[in-house]
């Protein structure tokens, strides 16, 4: 079973930070990906305004994920970043375009279209790169000693492309259900329509990744299907099926607030599935969380901060969401 020691606690903290990033920036990036489907300026203003006050906080979880990995598992950070070199650079550049578009598009009328394209392109590139990076980690990287020893295109495989496309679909679904929750009228109706299409695509993507993963390594197969593991792993697909039923029902009955949170649940289950596949490796098949762990006193020093500050952060982040709660109205438009 899972022992309770510092590296395990830290593995859960990092996993938590990355998960919070995935779902919170996930809907921001999803909105960017869906942007071309809403060509009207009025709609685009509403879409932007629905996340303008919170996107920066959402993105900060990515910095915590990366910074926390360097601090708590420096060896994993040192091996994975060069292995994922190109996807990481592409992600960063995509996030540059996406991030500045939030401010720049309000500062110009003539060039607004250009920043709308940057918002879409940056969001799409960053998402693809994140999905590809995930696939590249799952398929494992070539390590010698304490260093990455592969080439700078090793990450590119059919499997990593599959995970890249899957994440684009997943973030789009998050974005669409966010719009269902935060908008009204015709815009919301179109978001409902998109959610149907994207949910079906997402289920296909989850299925495809689930089928492909056991073929990557025999260890993944054993983890999921060997007795008695299957007693613990079988509930995951069952829960996915149950959530899907609820999600379909909420879309059919137009419960504005449910689809988004049920999509979050779907992400949580998929994420748990990834965790089941990877544990206890932080670099699959090469480096475990214990091998990569920073010295005890580094992890303890940070644990104090995390224990006090993460609840505080969640508190004031929730407050910020509360301040900007409810449907975004085109005329009220902060921004």
């Amino acid at each position, binding site marked *: 079973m899972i022992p309770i020691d510092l590296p395990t606690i830290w593995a859960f903290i990092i996993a938590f930070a990355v998960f919070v990033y995935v779902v919170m920036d996930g809907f921001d990036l999803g909105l960017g990906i869906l942007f071309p489907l809403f060509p009207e300026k009025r709609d685009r203003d509403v879409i932007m305004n629905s996340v303008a006050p919170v996107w920066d*906080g959402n993105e900060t979880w990515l910095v915590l994920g990366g910074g926390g990995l360097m601090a708590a598992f420096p060896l994993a*950070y040192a091996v994975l970043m060069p292995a994922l*070199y190109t996807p990481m650079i592409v992600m960063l550049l995509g996030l540059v375009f996406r991030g500045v578009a939030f401010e720049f598009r309000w500062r110009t009328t003539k060039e607004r279209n250009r920043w709308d394209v940057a918002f879409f392109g940056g969001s799409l590139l960053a998402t693809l790169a994140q999905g590809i990076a995930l696939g590249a980690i799952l398929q494992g990287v070539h390590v010698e000693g304490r260093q990455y020893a592969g080439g*700078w295109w090793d990450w590119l495989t059919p499997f990593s492309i599959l995970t890249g496309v899957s994440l684009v679909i997943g973030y789009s679904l998050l974005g669409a259900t966010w719009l269902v929750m935060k908008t009204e009228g015709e815009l919301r109706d179109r978001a409902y329509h998109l959610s149907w299409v994207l949910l079906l695509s997402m289920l296909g993507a989850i299925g495809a990744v689930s089928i492909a993963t056991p073929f990557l390594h025999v260890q993944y197969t054993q983890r999921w299907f060997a007795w008695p593991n299957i007693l613990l792993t079988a509930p995951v697909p069952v829960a996915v099926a149950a959530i899907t039923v609820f999600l379909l029902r909420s879309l059919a009955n137009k419960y504005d607030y449910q689809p988004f949170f049920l999509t979050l649940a779907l992400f949580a289950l998929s994420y748990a599935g990834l965790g089941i596949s990877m544990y206890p490796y932080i670099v699959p098949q090469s480096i475990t969380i214990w091998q990569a762990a920073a*010295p005890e006193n580094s992890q303890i020093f940070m644990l104090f901060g995390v224990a006090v500050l993460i609840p505080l952060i969640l508190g004031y982040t929730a407050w910020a969401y509360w301040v*900007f709660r409810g449907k975004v109205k085109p005329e009220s438009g*902060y921004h």
Partner: protein
Amino acid sequence: MFEGWDAVVLARAQFAFTMSFHIIFPAFSIGLASYLAVLEALWLWTGREVYINLFNYWLKIFAVAFGMGVVSGIVMSYQFGTNWSAFSDKVGPVIGPLMAYEVLTAFFLEAGFLGVMLFGLKRVGPKLHFLATLMVAIGTLISAFWILSANSWMQTPAGHAVNADGQFIAADWLKVIFNPSFPYRLVHMVLAAYLTTALVVGAVGAYHLLRDRHLAGPRVMFSMAMWMATLVAPLQIIAGDQHGLNTLEHQPVKIMAMEGHFHSHKDGAPLILFGLPNQAAGRVDYAIEVPKLGSLILKHSPDAPMAGLDTVPRENWPPVAITFWSFRIMVGMGLLMLALGLFSLLMRVRGALYDSRLLHMFAVAMGPAGFVAVLAGWITTEVGRQPFTVYGLLRTVDSASPLAAPAVASSLIAFVIVYFIVFTAGMVYLFRLMAAPPHPGEQGPSSEAPTRTAGITPAAGAVAEGAAR
């Protein structure tokens, strides 16, 4: 392509390029966040409309600058891993936690309250909104605290040990955080950020006063900015001197490079004002120097002996010419700031602060001086500690990722292209915002177009604002 290139040199170029772009924005937003907090406090306290107009005016500029700082900062946090993985593995256990604390105590605080600060005044009311502004301002300062602690530890490592895997580990966290150069660097940088912002605010105020010296907003901001220059420029020179003495104690080789001291001097080193450092020959060509002044400044005694680079193995020399010149540029800017502060004080005493065109033109010209000084200062301290990443302990060549040159060259080119596109556009938008004077009924970022003041003509506005004074 790029096969013959040195991957480490390319990685250094990439770090220098992305870092130089990044530092411009925090240097500005640290000061601007504090200025915004002061403006909002003055508005709440006095109720004068001019303060909320100025607040909203600078808030729009802050939003754009902050956004550029955020996106260029995320690049930095991942670059340690992509280009400097050996460094990350070895040094991560010590500086990783410092940066993690920066994220937890500063980045989240700034980002969490930024939305309310930018868009939430009407939703939460003035008092809670002021709290949000304060949190953002405090966040920028906490951020400076941690990142300068991490940088200072790399300059003057303390409180550490080395484990069996060759990693640095902390033996005493307090000694790591409050390492010998940290207090000096923190004070020097925070003052630099305040001065940089004051010079920009002063330049914008002066620019609008040159066109119309009766505008209330520009008068207030110009006066506030000139007070900062008058008071903080001398303080900064004292702080810089103290920082220099601290560097002499802990990183003497950096001082030798800054001063161009290739040779040791037994009875008093000269101050080389200008010259062309010749690293290969180990001398400064065409040097113009003042005898014994170097020892007087650095040792506070004209005859004190000073060692030169001839006492240091050549493989440990930093690039002297860059360190020497960037230091002189920084000092030159500092002296000009002092001159501006004193000149404005003189004009203020004479009651001509808002009337002296010469002063206003000087202030406009000094607008970018803070950025130049910040960049030159960072180049001095970062190039001056070469060839090490952790001073004296880990060499730069042993810090890089196991990457081939083509990978690093491609990403460098991508960063250069993207940054020039994005930040050129950002600069244009910033200049556009600054080119319009603050007007009555100024809206924050919440208004889409700058012309939401329907019903108030500029002339009527000027009268109204005049009455508000």
